[in-house]
Structures are given as structure tokens and as C-alpha cells.
């Protein structure tokens, strides 16, 4: 009954989406306020019905209703409750429902919080949003219905892939989807502006907070996914340039570029056409990502052909939306009033340069991800494009971005002073130089480029702080004055600073981990030890114990640092009889910002056990960096100037204070 209820709710949501896709659009065209205002309540109602469908599927999982095929194939009655719930989106059909749920959520948010949007723009934004909803709701109902029943209900389910039975599944997909489905709003705004044929700085003010919101979640989602892969897969890697990862990374790069170009548009009324294009591209990349992950094309081009319905359907959605948007762009963009040109050395010049490199980096990831697929589809020839390619191309492209990051905020709009900015960055450069010298001194014979990379990371971090120090005059005026000024700085300034600082943190972690991590492999019998850097790990013994739906082999290690005991690490291997598969549960021990990482290999008949041990210096910074970036985004979002609808301050108080 519940499954049918969910199915019915989804059909109703589709009906509402059809209304939302047409009536407000018609209203905007006829300039009929009554028709235009149909958009908001319909968007909220559509969200409510998708939410009912989503809740119904969750209920089927919680009740272990194995008469529903989707539940039977992906759940098990003995599974802990949290994994019953998260298992809902641990499969194709459920994850598409989550996708649509978040799409409808964003539509409803615009309807509810976009009160001061001009009626016409709002109607069109909600209309475009509903076009996407119609396409994907049809996709679910026609090709990926999660509510289908089995005539003879089995007693037990097949269980969820054990690798997915992890708290990571509770957090990672929802965050990631909030990010890249959230970019649909920027896309809808862009299309609405193109249909309207009018775009102004106010448009950028409305788009930027939505993009920022999606970008924050995308940043956290990608970082969370990376950490999850790191502790689950058991060989210590945290980024694999896997097509599935690239699928989320490309929209991130495009969204990052979009955030920066929207800034230029808002402040200088320039880069309009480019900003619109970026908004279209960012969500198009999300759609391409969905296609890559959901169509099975990645396993092989042939797998795609063997289950054509889904693949072709998504491909059709892809062509329709991306193609349609680009055609509309080509037709309408020339009508938009172009903003002015810019001086190369200026804040906007720096932001354009940022866009150039981000888009180039994004294009590199794009071609690296899709080229092997295209080549195989066209010529049948198989090539591999893996980590060495991406590291060799993406890496060098990111270096100029990192060097330029601290300069951007220090340049004035319109006409910047490069020399002046450079002079103000002398402190940051000195810190970088000292870092390079120190790293060289303490690790002679290490990787040659690594000290420079460390210096660059510190330069980015110190450069971010420089802006705040400059703007508060911290080193020149009394502390109280500087403090008062710091409080007076707009939150978006603090947000930008934190995001740039976070970028530096992440780079620091990446360099530390890739250049200085240590690895040991061994086979140990109880009582034997293995050492890595200054740590000694002694195998105390192994034990087997039952879990709710698995059996676990755990090994207990005593960890000593320079001879003194600091703790116990317990890596394990879990066997899941329902699927006949095993997972590795790594043990992690935090040492400052670094980690000790132990994962178990095979248990040999003679009682010895294979172990893989890593010491990962600064590894935590890889994920703390993105967290700082997302916090920067949140801080910026809380800025009253970005809050659409916040009344403008009558008169800026600081302006009344005489200049020093």
C-alpha cells in the first residue's frame, strides 16, 4: 500500500510539474500576474508530493517490505536501521528519486524565499526548474521506478553492497546532490534571463547566493566522498581521478568560476554573457555527471548499449537541455547589452584570469574523462586516461591560479596597482620563502618540487590573511581600532578570505600527503612488530566477533612512539554472508594533523596476517581545507548585502567617519 502511495504521489508530482512548467511561463509571456503566481504554490506542492514519494520509499525500506523489487535487491532485514534508510539512495532508482527530491526542494526554496524577485523572472525561473523536474520524473516513472512489486514476495532481501554500509552513505550523496542539483537554480535563472532577453546587475545579485549555496554543499560533498574513499578502500588513496569523481569535480570547477564571474557582473555590470554561459555549463556538467554515473556507460560503452532504455533516456534529456540551452544562448546572447571592457590589471581582470584557468582546468578534466569513451565509441580503440594524465595536466594548470589567488582581492576594481599589490604581499612571499628554505633544510634528498609547492600553499594562506590585515590596518593602528574595523568589514570579505585560506590549507595537505607519506607492508604473527617513521606497531592478537549482518576479523595493535605507548589500533575485515563479499575496516589514529592508517590483508593459515600501514603527514588538511572553504561560503551567504530582500542600509555608518 505504501509503495503504491509513493508511486501515486510521484505521478501527481509529475502532473504538478507539468502545470508549473507551463502556466507561469504563459503568464510571463502574456504579462498576466494571476497565471505567473501559479508558479510558487505549485512548486511547493510539487515538492510536497515528491517528498511523500521519497518518504514512502524510505518507509518500504524501514519495514523491509521485500515485495518491492528495489527493497529486495538492496536491503536486508538484519541491516542496522541507519543503513536501511541510507540504502534508499544506495542504488540507481532510489538515488534518482533523491535527485528529483532535491531538485523539487530547490524549486520550493525559490518559491518560498524569492519573495522580492520580480514576478516575471520568478515565474520563468520556476518554469524552467519544472521542465527539468518533468524530464527526470518521467525518467523515474518510465525507466527506473523504485516502487515496482514482485508477485511472490521473497522472505529476505539481497542486502546492500557492503562497501556502502557506512555512515558515509548517509552524508555524501545528499550533500553532493544538494550541490550539483542545486546548480539547476543557476541554470534556471540563466534560461529565464535569456527568455526574457534582459539581464542586469540585480540578476547577478539574485543568482549569486543560490550558486553559493549549491557550491558550499558541492564542496563539502566532494570532500566527504574523498574522505570516505580514503578510509574505506584500504590503500590510502583519497582522490583517484575516477570518472565518477570527475563527474562531481567538473561542476565544482565551473561553479567556482561562476561565483567569481557573478561577482564581476554584480559589481561592474560586465561579463554578463559569459556569466550566463557559465551558469548553463555548470548545470550541464551536473547533467553529464548524472549521465556518466547513471547510464552505465562508464563500465563500458557496451554496458550502456545492453541496457539502452535508461542510457538513451538520460542522453535525450542531456541533448534536450544542454543543446536547447546553448541554442537559446546563441539566439539571445547577442541581444543582451554587453558590459564594458576591462583593464587587465584590475580586480575584474584578476577574476577573468581566474575564470580562464578554472575553465581550462575543467576542460582538461572533461576531455580526460570523456575522450576514452568517445574514442572507443567512434573507433573501437581502447585507451586509458588515468591519474598520471590528470596530475600531469591539471596540476600545472592549477599553479598559476594559486599564485594569482592572493593578488585578486588586493587589486582595486577598474584600475588595479599590481606593484602595490605585490608590495603588500611581501610578507606573504617572505613566509613562503622561509617555508621553502625550511622544508629543503629538513628533508634533503626529498622530492625537488615539494618544498616550492609547500611555499605556494603558505603563500595562498598568508595572502588571504594579508587582505584582512591590510583592510583593518592591524599592524599600523592600535589593536582596538583594528578590531573595530575587523568587525565592520562585510561578512562577504571574511567569507572570501576564509575560502581562499581554506584552498591554501587543502593544498598544504595534498602536498604533505603525496610527497611525504610513508608506507609499510608486512605479514605479522602475534607478538611481532612493524615500524613506520617513529612509530612501532605490535600485533597483540586477532579475534573474530559477530556483527548484525556480518562477521568481523579484528586485529589489535599496540602503538608506540619512540618506545612509549600511545594507544591501540584495531583494523578489521568484515565478511557479509548475504552477498559473499568482504570489506576492509581501516584503523586510523590522529597524530596532530597527520594520521596513522592501518588496513588488514589476508589471514594466512599459519596465523600471520597481512597488514598495510601508512603514515600520512598533514593528511587531515586535505579535508579541513574544503570545510574552511564551505564555511567561508556560509559566512558570505550570511552577509546582509547578499540576502536578497534585506533592506539596504539607509546610509553606511563608516562613510561618516573621516578618512584617516
Amino acid at each position: 500500500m505504501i509503495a503504491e502511495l509513493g508511486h501515486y504521489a510521484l505521478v501527481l508530482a509529475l502532473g504538478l510539474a507539468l502545470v508549473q512548467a507551463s502556466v507561469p511561463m504563459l503568464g510571463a509571456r502574456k504579462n498576466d500576474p494571476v497565471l505567473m503566481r501559479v508558479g510558487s504554490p505549485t512548486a511547493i506542492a510539487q515538492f510536497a508530493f515528491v517528498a511523500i514519494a521519497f518518504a514512502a520509499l524510505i518507509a518500504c525500506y524501514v519495514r523491509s517490505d521485500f515485495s518491492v523489487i528495489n527493497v529486495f535487491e538492496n536491503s536486508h532485514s538484519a541491516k542496522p536501521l541507519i543503513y536501511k534508510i541510507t540504502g534508499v539512495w544506495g542504488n540507481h532508482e532510489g538515488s534518482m528519486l533523491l535527485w528529483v527530491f532535491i531538485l523539487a526542494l530547490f524549486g520550493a526554496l525559490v518559491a518560498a524565499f524569492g519573495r522580492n524577485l520580480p514576478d516575471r523572472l520568478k515565474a520563468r525561473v520556476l518554469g524552467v526548474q519544472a521542465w527539468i523536474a518533468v524530464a527526470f520524473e518521467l525518467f523515474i516513472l518510465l525507466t527506473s521506478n523504485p516502487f515496482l512489486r514482485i508477485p511472490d514476495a521473497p522472505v529476505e532481501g539481497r542486502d546492500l553492497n557492503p562497501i556502502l554500509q557506512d555512515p558515509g552513505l548517509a552524508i555524501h550523496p545528499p550533500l553532493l546532490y544538494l550541490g550539483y542539483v542545486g546548480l539547476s537554480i543557476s541554470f534556471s535563472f540563466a534560461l529565464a534571463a535569456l527568455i526574457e532577453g534582459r539581464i542586469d546587475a540585480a540578476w547577478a545579485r539574485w543568482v549569486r547566493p543560490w550558486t553559493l549555496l549549491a557550491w558550499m554543499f558541492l564542496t563539502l560533498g566532494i570532500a566527504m566522498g574523498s574522505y570516505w574513499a580514503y578510509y574505506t578502500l584500504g590503500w590510502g588513496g583519497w582522490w583517484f581521478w575516477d570518472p565518477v569523481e570527475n563527474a562531481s569535480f567538473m561542476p565544482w570547477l565551473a561553479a567556482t568560476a561562476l561565483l567569481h564571474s557573478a561577482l564581476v557582473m554584480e559589481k561592474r555590470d560586465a561579463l554578463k554573457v559569459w556569466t550566463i554561459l557559465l551558469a548553463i555549463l555548470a548545470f550541464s556538467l551536473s547533467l553529464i555527471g548524472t549521465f556518466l554515473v547513471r547510464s552505465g556507460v562508464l563500465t563500458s560503452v557496451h554496458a550502456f548499449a545492453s541496457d539502452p532504455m535508461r542510457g538513451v533516456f538520460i542522453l535525450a534529456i542531456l541533448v534536450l537541455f544542454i543543446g536547447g540551452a546553448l541554442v537559446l544562448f546563441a539566439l539571445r546572447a547577442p541581444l543582451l547589452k554587453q558590459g564594458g571592457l576591462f583593464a587587465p590589471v584590475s580586480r575584474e581582470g584578476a577574476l577573468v584570469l581566474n575564470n580562464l584557468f578554472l575553465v581550462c582546468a575543467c576542460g582538461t578534466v572533461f576531455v580526460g574523462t570523456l575522450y576514452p569513451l568517445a574514442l572507443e565509441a567512434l573507433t573501437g580503440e581502447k585507451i586509458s586516461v588515468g591519474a598520471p594524465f590528470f596530475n600531469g595536466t591539471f596540476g600545472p594548470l592549477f599553479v598559476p591560479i594559486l599564485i594569482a589567488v592572493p593578488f585578486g582581492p588586493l587589486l582595486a576594481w577598474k584600475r588595479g596597482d599590481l606593484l602595490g599589490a605585490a608590495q603588500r604581499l611581501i610578507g606573504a612571499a617572505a613566509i613562503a620563502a622561509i617555508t621553502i628554505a625550511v622544508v629543503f633544510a629538513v628533508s634533503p634528498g626529498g622530492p625537488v618540487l615539494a618544498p616550492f609547492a609547500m611555499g605556494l600553499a603558505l603563500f595562498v594562506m598568508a595572502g588571504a590573511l594579508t587582505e584582512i590585515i591590510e583592510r583593518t590596518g592591524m599592524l599600523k593602528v592600535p589593536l582596538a581600532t583594528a578590531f573595530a574595523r575587523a568587525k565592520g568589514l562585510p561578512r562577504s570579505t571574511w567569507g572570501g578570505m576564509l575560502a581562499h585560506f581554506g584552498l591554501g590549507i587543502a593544498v598544504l595537505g595534498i602536498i604533505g600527503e603525496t610527497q611525504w607519506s610513508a608506507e609499510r607492508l608486512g605479514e605479522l604473527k602475534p607478538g611481532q612488530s612493524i615500524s613506520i617513521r617513529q612509530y612501532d606497531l605490535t600485533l597483540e592478537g586477532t579475534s573474530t566477533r559477530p556483527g548484525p549482518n556480518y562477521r568481523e576479523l579484528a586485529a589489535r595493535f599496540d602503538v608506540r612512539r619512540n618506545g612509549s605507548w600511545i594507544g591501540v589500533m584495531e583494523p578489521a575485515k568484515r565478511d557479509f554472508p548475504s552477498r559473499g563479499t568482504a570489506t576492509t575496516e581501516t584503523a586510523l589514529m590522529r597524530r596532530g594533523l597527520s594520521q596513522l592508517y592501518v588496513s588488514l590483508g589476508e589471514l594466512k593459515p599459519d596465523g600471520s596476517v597481512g597488514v598495510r600501514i601508512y603514515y600520512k603527514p598533514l593528511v587531515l588538511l586535505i579535508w579541513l581545507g574544503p570545510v574552511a572553504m564551505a564555511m567561508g561560503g556560509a559566512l558570505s551567504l550570511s552577509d546582509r548585502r547578499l540576502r536578497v530582500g534585506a533592506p539596504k542600509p539607509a546610509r553606511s555608518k563608516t562613510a561618516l567617519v573621516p578618512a584617516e
Partner: protein
Amino acid sequence: MRWIPLVVAMLCLWVLPAAAVQPDEILADSQLEVRARTLTKELRCMVCQNQSIDDSDAPLARDLRLLVRERLQAGDSNQEVIDFLVARYGEFVLLRPRFSAHTAILWLTPIGILLIGVFVFVLLSRKPAKPDTDLTPHEETRLSEILRRDGV
């Protein structure tokens, strides 16, 4: 010279990545082992999805790792090992495709986008922004006065 003890301490802690992927695969010659690790990171485990043979647990990956080490011990250069594997398994085994006619688009796209971007950047930025020159000297002074008063 207070830093000398620090350097000595760090040197003692410095551990070469001495371990191989499986303990029994390690070569006695540590320099050869380092070369083997570099090579195995560049080679694809052909039965896995996007994994190098260095990362993979698949039996095929292990066979390839042993093969790479065998060739190195027989005195092959890195390039010879790679050529040998490509001759045997095709280009598919390389995670970093070679530059050739059919991978030209792949390799040239990043540079292409960058060059086009730089070209457009120069094109758009060379001319001075128009509104700036449209102001009369009087307007200029008036504007800078307003700007100064608003503390911009």
C-alpha cells in the same frame, strides 16, 4: 648552527618507501624497487575500473607487477619495460596515453583552451574602457570627490 640536530633528527626519521605492494614482491635492490613502484603507478590493471596495478588487489595486477620487476631485473630501462607491456597488451595498459594522432585532441585541449582564453583576454582588455574617457575633467573631479566622501 642550531638547526643541525634538527636536520640529523629528521634524517633518522626519514624512511624510504621500502615496502612493495605485497611483501613477497619486494626487490632486494631498493633503487630498482623505487623504479618498479614508479612504473606500476603508470600502468593500468586491465580488469579493474580505473586502477593502476600498484593499487589493485586483482591477481592480474600482481602478475603484471611481478612481470615489471622481472624485466627491470633483466636490465630493461623504464622505457623498455613500458614498450614491452604495450607490445603485449596494447595502449590500453598505459594510464597516461602516448601523444599520437588519435590522442592529439586529448593532449592539446588544455593548451588549446588556454591559448584561446588568453587571446580573448588580451582582445577584451587591450582597449581602455569607454565610459572612462567620456567624462569631462569637471566630471572627473566631481566623481573623485563623491568617491572620496563615500570612502570607497
